[in-house]
């Protein structure tokens, strides 16, 4: 039942080019074992593309992605899937699998041909569903769930992989407020290394030790929420004017958008 040890992630000059354009441009950073890093940036910044290079859906044009020193692109796929789990943006199929069957897919990397599900698998599947408040959905057809329920089931599937490192692409998409908080708290509480793409800067500030800002495929800032969430950066990267104050209760910097346009090219070094 043990989860794999949290891995150390290292990205080294990861570049993805398509049609002569760099979708991800020489991005390098490290994630320490057990650390959760938020990945933020406007639409088209390259967040999803960068994450895809981690879970082997997109081979980097150049650069390397290392997990505990092993290049994820030279590891056998099954071995990587035991060490790194990914939650992709919601996908719906044309086939009606039950929720339990969808979560059972998470056990595949631990299985050989002709292996059945044993007691351990069943317990892990049930536990993963319960962790996402989805135990009551186990027998329901996946395709009939709401967007938020589907998202929780896909996160449960990633949990069932029992990997020490998790990559999550917009895991709070479609979730209601309570489940947004629950989900991020859960990921933070697992003790896994995490890279989480998020749209909501306030959630990123609340749950991520560090925030990594992508803009036009480049890594433009990396640091603690206090270091990253500044009026200048938001004006630069998102073209919005905002006020950022530590929240009186949590002490975490919180972003409040202001209705006006940002001052044109003011103040940023």
């Amino acid at each position, binding site marked *: 039942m043990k989860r794999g040890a949290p891995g150390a992630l290292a990205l080294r000059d990861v570049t993805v080019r398509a049609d002569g354009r760099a979708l991800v441009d020489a991005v390098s950073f490290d994630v320490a074992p057990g650390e959760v890093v938020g990945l933020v940036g406007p639409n088209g910044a390259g967040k999803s593309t960068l994450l895809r290079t981690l879970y082997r859906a997109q081979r980097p044009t150049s650069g390397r992605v290392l997990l505990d020193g092993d290049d994820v692109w030279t590891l056998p*796929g099954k071995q990587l899937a035991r060490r790194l789990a990914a939650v992709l943006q919601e996908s719906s199929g044309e086939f009606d699998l039950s929720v339990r069957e969808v979560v059972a897919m998470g056990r*595949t*990397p631990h299985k050989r041909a002709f292996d*059945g599900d044993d007691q351990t698998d069943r317990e892990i599947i049930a536990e993963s569903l319960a962790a996402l408040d989805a135990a009551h959905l186990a*027998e329901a057809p996946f395709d*009939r769930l709401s967007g938020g329920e589907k998202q929780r089931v896909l996160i449960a599937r990633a949990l069932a992989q029992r990997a020490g490192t998790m990559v999550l692409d917009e895991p709070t998409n479609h979730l209601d407020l309570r489940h947004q908080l629950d989900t991020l708290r859960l990921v933070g509480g697992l003790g896994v290394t995490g890279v989480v793409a998020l749209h909501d800067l306030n959630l990123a500030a609340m749950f991520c030790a560090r925030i990594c800002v992508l803009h036009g495929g480049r890594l433009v800032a990396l640091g603690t929420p206090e270091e990253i969430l500044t009026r200048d950066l938001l004006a630069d990267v998102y073209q919005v004017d905002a006020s950022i104050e530590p929240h009186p209760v949590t002490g975490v910097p919180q972003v409040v958008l202001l209705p006006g346009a940002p001052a044109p090219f003011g103040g940023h070094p």
Partner: protein
Amino acid sequence: MTEAKTAGIATAVPAAPAARRRLPYPLVLLLLVALLLAVATAAVAAGSIRIPAGQVWGILLHWLHPGLAAPDWPPVRATIVLDVRLPRVLLSGVVGAGLAVCGMALQALVRNPLADPMLLGVSSGATVGAVIVVVYGVAWFGVFTLPFAAFGGALAALVAVYFLARSGGRMPTVRLVLAGVATAEVLSAVASFLVVTSNDPHAAQSALRWMLGGLAGTTWEMFWIPATAVLAGTVALLGVSRPLNLLLAGEEAAAALGLDVHRFRATLFVCVAVMVGTVVSVSGSIGFVGLIMPHVVRLLVGTDHRRALPAAALLGAAFLIGADLAARTLISPEEIPVGVLTALVGGPFFLWLMRRKAAR
């Protein structure tokens, strides 16, 4: 008051969509086995000389082991059962099982419930391979020449359709069906052309057999190659039933769950082409079995391939044995090509499926 109200709302758990009601899996398998045995018995019993079911089993048991049953039947009946009807019934079963299993695998491989060996042009590819061998009298590999040529044609067609239908990493249903139908049409035309331009009327006659799809004149020699291929292929597919499930989640999710999608797909295309090729080389192209059976099976036992593949093999075998029985008894002594019958059943089913999908 307001507090109590919101607390009540917050604790209310939204109801889950209802689970599909299904019979227990072992019971379904048992029923399918019973159905298969019943249909097979009926198919061996029926014909110009009717043989009672009890006698059919007596002859079979005596054949398996002389101690199992005392022969109280005229020897000619044993000959009819063992040399004429049994190979045909068993081959029908193998062909039906092979087509159903291949259909199910193809539907997962291209992630599209409308995939089927015939619709994707795989059967037509195999037919062209078979017709070339017959018309030109090629015999490079002895008894394996025909299955081998059919396999080559099947694989070529499958690869062609796959790349024609794919655009930018996606394979929309419309493109898949169009590519499959167009490929099937072109290949059927090629096969017809080869038959028509052939100078050898005998070869042309036997080539026509593949184009209509039928199992008349089955002998034991025709049985072993497809039977071995279908059995081995089905076992192989069962071994990869988990990865097949992963494909249903989509290519990226499958990759994230550790599957080398491209290599897996390429390997399984070869596996499916072997099965379809060997099947078509004895039966011709029989349509819609690979389309209908997987859908019925999914309604019965769900989509998980670990459960669905064995059920598909059993149901496919029972269906085609039944269809072949109807083909040779409905207007006897004439025979309807079994492919004509399956198309009569399958065409409307396909349309219903398309409309149902469109409605969703």
